[in-house]
């Protein structure tokens, strides 16, 4: 019974991390229609910058958490303006390919700047111990991650459902032209969404690095995971992404616990099953 509680905590912390990472790519895809295959690279850039700030410069963790997401967001902004905006007329597929090429470029850039070694970032000192819950030791950082995840999820959900900005987003997901016709500057919305998506990727990068580590090539693994969550949850909706992240977190954690040899296969089988049975995802807004 208590191991189940431990697994649940693990699944939740992993799931919320997935949520933070995937929300960015989901929003961008839903609004801009562009599947940003460089999203994993943005996450990894966040981890690398976090590493430079915390480990190399010795500054505290919260400084990284404050600065890095904005740096990533600005980089995303620049990318959107110089690469995506002039090429919208080429179509969605072309833009996806552009981001794929970008991911390749980022890969080598990272190796040139930070080298090829595998690195880790230590969590802040006050979260580096373990807490006992129901007879199990759980690292407090993971508990903190659950709390932070819930807060971010709540903020995003509230923004999307209850505010005017959220209404614009929801409308843009359903019918872009109409929104443009109503006088909203759709290009501004696109740029802001991309900015915001990159911001989330940066937050994910900093928060995730103590758990997932920082290694060259991991951007592709992160990307695949986000795609799984994206598919399961449906496009663009925050609630869908929350549900899907937690579900994937549960499935991965528990399958690794009960049937470790099959855990790889199960995750992709889940993805395939959702695509076959309910292609728009759990709470998707588009078929």
């Amino acid at each position, binding site marked *: 019974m208590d191991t189940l509680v431990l697994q649940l905590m*693990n699944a939740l912390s992993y799931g919320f991390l997935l949520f933070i990472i995937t929300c960015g790519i989901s929003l961008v895809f839903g609004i801009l229609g562009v599947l940003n295959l460089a999203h994993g690279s943005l996450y990894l850039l966040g981890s690398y910058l976090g590493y430079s700030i915390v480990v190399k410069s010795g500054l505290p963790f919260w400084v990284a958490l404050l600065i890095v997401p904005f740096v990533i967001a600005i980089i995303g902004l620049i990318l959107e303006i110089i690469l995506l905006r002039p090429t919208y007329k080429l179509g969605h597929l072309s833009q996806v390919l552009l981001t794929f090429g970008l991911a390749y470029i980022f890969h080598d850039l990272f190796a040139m700047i930070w080298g*090829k070694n*595998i*690195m880790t970032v230590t969590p802040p000192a006050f979260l580096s111990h373990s807490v006992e819950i129901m007879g199990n*030791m759980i690292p407090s950082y993971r508990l903190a991650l659950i709390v932070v995840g819930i807060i971010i999820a709540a903020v995003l959900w509230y923004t999307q459902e209850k505010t005017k900005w959220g209404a614009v987003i929801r409308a843009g997901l359903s019918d872009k032209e109409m929104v443009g016709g109503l006088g909203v500057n759709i290009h501004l919305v696109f740029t802001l969404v991309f900015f915001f998506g990159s911001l989330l990727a940066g937050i994910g990068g900093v928060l995730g690095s103590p758990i997932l580590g920082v290694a*060259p090539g991991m951007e592709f693994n992160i990307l695949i995971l986000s795609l799984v969550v994206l598919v399961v949850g449906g496009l663009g909706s925050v609630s869908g992404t929350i549900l899907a992240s937690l579900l994937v977190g549960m499935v991965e954690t528990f399958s*690794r*616990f009960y049937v470790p040899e099959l855990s790889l296969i199960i995750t992709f089988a889940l993805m395939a099953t959702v695509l076959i049975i309910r292609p728009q995802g759990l709470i998707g807004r588009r078929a």
Partner: protein
Amino acid sequence: MKRVKRNWLIMLAFVLLLSACSSGAISTTTKNSEKDENSEPTTSDPSSDEPIKIGALLPSTGVYASLGENVMNGMELYFEEIGWEVAGKEIQIIHEDTEADPQVSLRKLRKLMEQDKIDILTGPISTAVAYAIRDEVDKNKLPFLVSHAGGNDLTRSKRSDYIWRSSFSSYQIGHSMGQWAYDNIGGKIYLTAADYAFGHEATAAFKDAYTAAGGEIVEEVFAPLGNNDFSSYLTKMNRDDIDGVYAFFAGTDAIRFVQQYEQYGLKGKIPLIGSGWLTAEDTRPQQGTAPEGIIASIFWDYSLDTPENKKFVEAYEAKYDARPSIESAEGYDAAAIIAKAIESLNGDVSDPDRLVEEISKVELNSPRGPIKFDQETHQIIQNLYIVETYLDGDKTENKVIDTVPEVIDPGK
């Protein structure tokens, strides 16, 4: 029609131009088959001042890149110490990036053999790469000194006259700990490793030795390679009825596993033992104080107290401003073995069979202790050391607490 005629003429001219270069594949491959009968020299002319070319197939990109880099560092350090010259001949290393991808490695091997005409091959890191190039190496009679990849089969079912391994075999790593664990840790152990061939081979060897000594493996669990989250497995291991956990992980897996071993409360409660890669010089800095108390088996350690090792460590740190890792030592030793073999031949590397024979006869006092080759299996015979990690201030260090001398791979 005129255009067609013009095209034909252009093609003809092109073909004639190319035929002027007579190094066509047809001619070289027919020469090769003649060579098999006459065993004529194919590479460098012994009497000329041609440099001796060593091909290094090592990854410089991808997940094993840092290991490849360390092996290169070790090799270059050695050759620099002897002035990049053996028996009057210049030594050249031609490095090709395998990306730890077997397909790419085959391509690069072909380039090294056919374009660069290397005399001897060394590397790789990944066992998959070693297996992939094995047939090609054997077919072309290329002397191959394996300086890392430890898959057992390379010196067993896939043995070749031309392949000699100076690094280790998974068996040597796992087996050497078995008896020691039974004598010093206890009778019941939980086994865990990364789910790939290396993990399986090392733990299987440990299991054999441990159970033969009288111990019992209560359970085994394998985590996917590159796994982030060991919590599920650690929960399973957190039992009161076992004396220890034997773990085989390397690289990022080792970093995360050891960190999480502490985070989930097993450190201090259940002794952790395993292979040296759990607490290697290049993983410990990332693990904080978590590796304290881990006991591992490995064939070289930074703290090994021999004059050869002290000299090696000093030279390495002076040149690279970093501590040598296990792979650095492997590279250094490989270079030393190659140099010694070349020297016994007086620099004449034209006959691969003689070169391989000289390699097999090399016996050295290397930084890892006395090493020599098993003539039948072509696997290195070396000491394995039991190493313990302790806390030194706020960092961790290793110390050698026991030695398992002259570990021989059974060869089948």
